[in-house]
């Protein structure tokens, strides 16, 4: 139990360090990209199709759709934006 709290706290500190270095120019891609990362709930959704019998499987199914939209849409739109940032 204490292990996962440690992981959680350390991850927040790592997040703070690296995100503070992202320049304002890239804040929108940062947001859509981190949005895609929060689609990691898909991992939980996959597991959920096992746990709950009938109800759980349905909830997991809807969660998979939501999370996949998040992951696929988030990474693709971030790529589309970053493609536009050009040097002179």
């Amino acid at each position: 139990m204490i292990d996962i709290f440690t992981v959680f706290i350390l991850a927040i500190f790592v997040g703070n360090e690296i995100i503070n270095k992202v320049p304002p120019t890239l804040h929108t891609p940062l947001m859509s990209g981190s949005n895609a990362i929060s689609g990691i709930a898909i991992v939980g959704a996959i597991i959920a199709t096992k746990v709950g019998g009938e109800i759980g499987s349905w909830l997991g199914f809807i969660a998979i759709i939501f999370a996949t939209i998040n992951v696929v849409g988030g990474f693709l739109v971030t790529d589309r934006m970053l493609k536009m940032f050009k040097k002179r």
Partner: protein
Amino acid sequence: MEFTNIAYVVGAVCFILGIKMLSHPRTARKGNGIASLGMLIAIIATLLNPENFGPDGKPLISFQYIGIGIIIGTIIGGIVAQKIEMTQMPQMVAIFNGLGGGASALVASAEFFSEYNQFENTFLPVTIILSVLIGTLTLTGSFIAFGKLQGFISGKPIVFPAQQLFNALILVSIFALGYLIIMNPVDLKLFYVVLIAAAILGITLTIPIGGADMPVVISLLNSYSGIAAAATGFVLMNNALIISGALVGASGLILTQIMCKGMNRSLQNVIFGAVGGDVSGGSGEAQELNIKSYSTEEAVMIFDAAEKIVIVPGYGLAVAQAQHAAREVGEWLELQGKTVLYAIHPVAGRMPGHMNVLLAEANIPYEQLKDLDEINPEFEDCDVALILGANDVVNPAARHDKSSPIFGMPILNVDKARTVIVNKRSMNPGFAGIQNELFGYDNTIMVFGDAKDMLNQLLSDFKEL
């Protein structure tokens, strides 16, 4: 199982590296690719986890549901990502935040339905209730934010009497119900009530926030969607969810702080202040401004004599779809050997960094886009500051007028430039509803008209010169 956890660590490292590479536009695209690779690794590792297969090798998870769900999600996500206009990016991020929170709440709910008659300790139900609470309010709050940005719901704050008391009561009752659930988990009605109450809380927390404050709200909801994922990670004891959720939560919080600082507002003030609608009155009587209105031909003369020009785009520029016209004018000026820079205020768009994306879309190189701290010293030796659709972020009252509602907000010091040329459609005040004294300054001239028409006219006048 060991290999699944190792794969999760690899996935998390990919996310961290990906965000780290977002520190420069040159490496950012590759970083995004690495982060998506990390996601693929985490998904495949979960699908292949031996725990998901029985002793006879039969899968315990439903590959049918998973496959169909992923196909549907990929089609919807792919189409949205391709079709969305850059001006609509805040709406899309709002919806995606909501879906992320919703997915977390659903996963926690599934876990509840599978475990409710066999909880071994209080840790699991506590984390489930937290995850459902945060995830659900992120879902409904995000849809309200989307509605406001899209114009389905009025951008004005929607308030009713004792709103904050009402919100506090809902939150307290959710915690009380949570306690009852832990005491008696088999009563499923309690769980449904928590779900509904969390959904209502998401709505009542978001409706009083005005349209102008949406950048803060989106950032905050972004953070919530991460925290919801982390809470679900605690439910499932899953490191991949915990690390990713923590990263996203931290990211959203940092952006929230930056947006608040850009508007000189505290987070409490944004969430509970119900401002950003129609502020009547403002700072006493509207002063008489002595305005000089110029034509584009006259403005061209001023540009011709200038060497260093700073263009200040506001959201009005994007609304008029005039980014491309602005870039053409900028390129023309550069061809004449002049220096051209773009000054971007942190709250220039509808979400953090929005204006930069809109200008990048118009092929303006990112080296020319300067943020507040970089550009302000440059105004001292700047010949012309061209203001396109920006208003409150260039109002000098923020520096000296203590009675102004925007006093203390960091602004672009355009008034330090030798000449300030302001393009506006009319003399309507900005979002904060206050008159801008800059327009009456001796070194300010106004060129009225639609931004796109004005810039095109300016360009043709240049070419005739």
